[in-house]
């Protein structure tokens, strides 16, 4: 029995981003494990510790994304696989999902696929839900806690966040889940783990290895360009006054004048 976690590297959230005149963005070279994926990888490792399951970490991306795989191996995943094919360069969610679902099917005997809530760079979660559909499995998004999981009986019960609050939901396995930060305290690699991960051979599965023809991975959308945000007009206006009441009244006047309220 198998638990699979899908993880990726993303630009550092602290990075400053600049956009040039032709619409190219520069966010520096520094990549970190997508912050959401740290929780996802940790959850796979925790499940492996508590149940008799194999934990596999998969990334879909070019070579620099192997770091997310090394992170997974270093904190206790059993194996890592990188999916890449030049046909995937278009960043289309549905193409990603098609490839990930094919990899999960190829592994076989997978009970649970875990994703982080979203990618912090492209801020997209679409491939997660689309992977569930491509697999034909149920999807439980925004999982804050796995309350119970029984791999043999093929059942799971989770609490998940909703826009309105939270829910407890039970489901059959296999299933796809995405996790939010309440789920665990991320594990960080030990020195020994990092050394072990550095030596690991990481296979790369391309479209052929996944049994897909490149046409199945063609993009339905295209990224055209990046655009800077519309500039905020003017600098901050600091509201002064002899007393805090005066300041408060002056601010309320401004907001009413600007028809903000």
């Amino acid at each position: 029995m198998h638990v699979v976690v899908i993880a990726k590297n993303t630009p550092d959230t602290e990075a400053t981003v600049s956009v040039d005149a032709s619409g190219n963005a520069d966010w520096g070279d520094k990549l970190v494990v997508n912050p959401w994926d740290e929780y996802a990888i940790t959850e796979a490792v925790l499940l492996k510790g508590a149940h008799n399951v194999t934990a596999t970490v998969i990334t879909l991306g070019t070579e620099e994304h192997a770091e997310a795989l090394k992170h997974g191996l270093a904190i206790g995943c059993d194996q890592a696989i990188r999916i890449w094919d030049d046909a995937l360069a278009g960043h289309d969610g549905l193409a990603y999902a098609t490839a990930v679902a094919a990899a999960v099917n190829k592994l076989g005997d997978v009970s649970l696929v875990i994703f982080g809530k979203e990618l912090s760079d492209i801020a997209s979660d679409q491939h997660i839900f689309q992977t569930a559909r491509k697999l034909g499995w149920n999807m439980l998004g925004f999982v804050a806690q796995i309350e119970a999981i029984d791999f043999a009986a093929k059942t799971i019960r989770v609490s998940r966040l909703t826009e309105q609050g939270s829910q407890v939901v039970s489901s059959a396995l296999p299933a796809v889940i995405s996790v939010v930060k309440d789920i665990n305290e991320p594990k960080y690699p030990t020195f020994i783990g990092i050394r072990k991960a550095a030596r690991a051979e990481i296979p790369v599965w391309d479209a052929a290895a996944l049994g897909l023809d490149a046409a199945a991975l063609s993009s339905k959308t295209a990224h055209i360009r990046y655009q800077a945000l519309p500039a905020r007009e003017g600098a901050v206006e600091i509201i002064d006054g002899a007393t805090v009441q005066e300041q408060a009244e002056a601010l309320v006047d401004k907001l009413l004048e600007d028809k903000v309220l």
Partner: protein
Amino acid sequence: MNVFVWIEQHNGTPVAASWEAIGLARQLGDTVTALVLGQGVDDIAQAAIHYGADAVLKADDATLAQVRFEPYVTLIAHLVQQHNPDIVLAAATISGREVLAGAAADVNAAMLPDVIELSLEDGKLSAARPVLGGKVLSVEAVTADGPQFATLRSRAFPMPEPDANRSGTITEVSPVLADDVIASRVESAAELSGQVSLTDASVIVAGGRGVGGPEGFAPVKELADVLGGALAASRAAVDAGWIPYEHQVGQTGKVVSPDLYIAAGISGAIQHQAGMRTSKVIVAINRDADAPIFRLARYGIVGDLFDVLPALAEAFRNRLG
């Protein structure tokens, strides 16, 4: 152009951004069909017509009482296959993002998620959406033929005026999945009752580490109540256990876009900005004049939030009656 709009609802309360989607659909298309799924949703079907739908496809069934991935995705994909609309829209809420993405996968269609601008060029959708923690916009376009799906960020598009004299057709449709083939069961739900939803709120008052403890949120909440707004927090306050995670705004919390965002005792870290940068007017209250939040704000008061917030609540109460 035929446009489908999924009207999201929870326990009979429609999600406001669904009406914004109808408003946009009216601009993009010639006919607008609202998909109203749930149990006991006649009023919502009628409201969809008042907000601008020409027709409603209504599925009223116990299996649809709560939004669940499988029955919702399967039914929406089925309706798209049957009616072949050019465009399918919904609000980019937690449910909207997953249900529309799933349905787009089923019909092998293009999907543009969480957009803040959307237009048609030669029959293909083109969109802008914030990426990299809201630091830049990514302009994306549909390239494939067939139905085009998009979800719209709350409050990014104008709310249409409902017109009670509008009329339209309401057609009943049946769910695709029977109860016993749906893998998931909602066993219980805890709703944030009596609170204004953060993503719909036009006014938000947020507190950070500066409030100093759980009781420090009292003046923050008082001002939110005076303004009829929602209560928010930075991650530092959430991680300290002073306020539940549902209130967190930022990269690992909610993304909000109110008309007015008042940040008190929040330094304005880049990850907090990711959740509130698109607010129309930002007011910062901080005792440190060099806090980064002042670089984002339109108005600022340098001072102690425990003095400024009560004074503001008092001033608003006097002026707003």
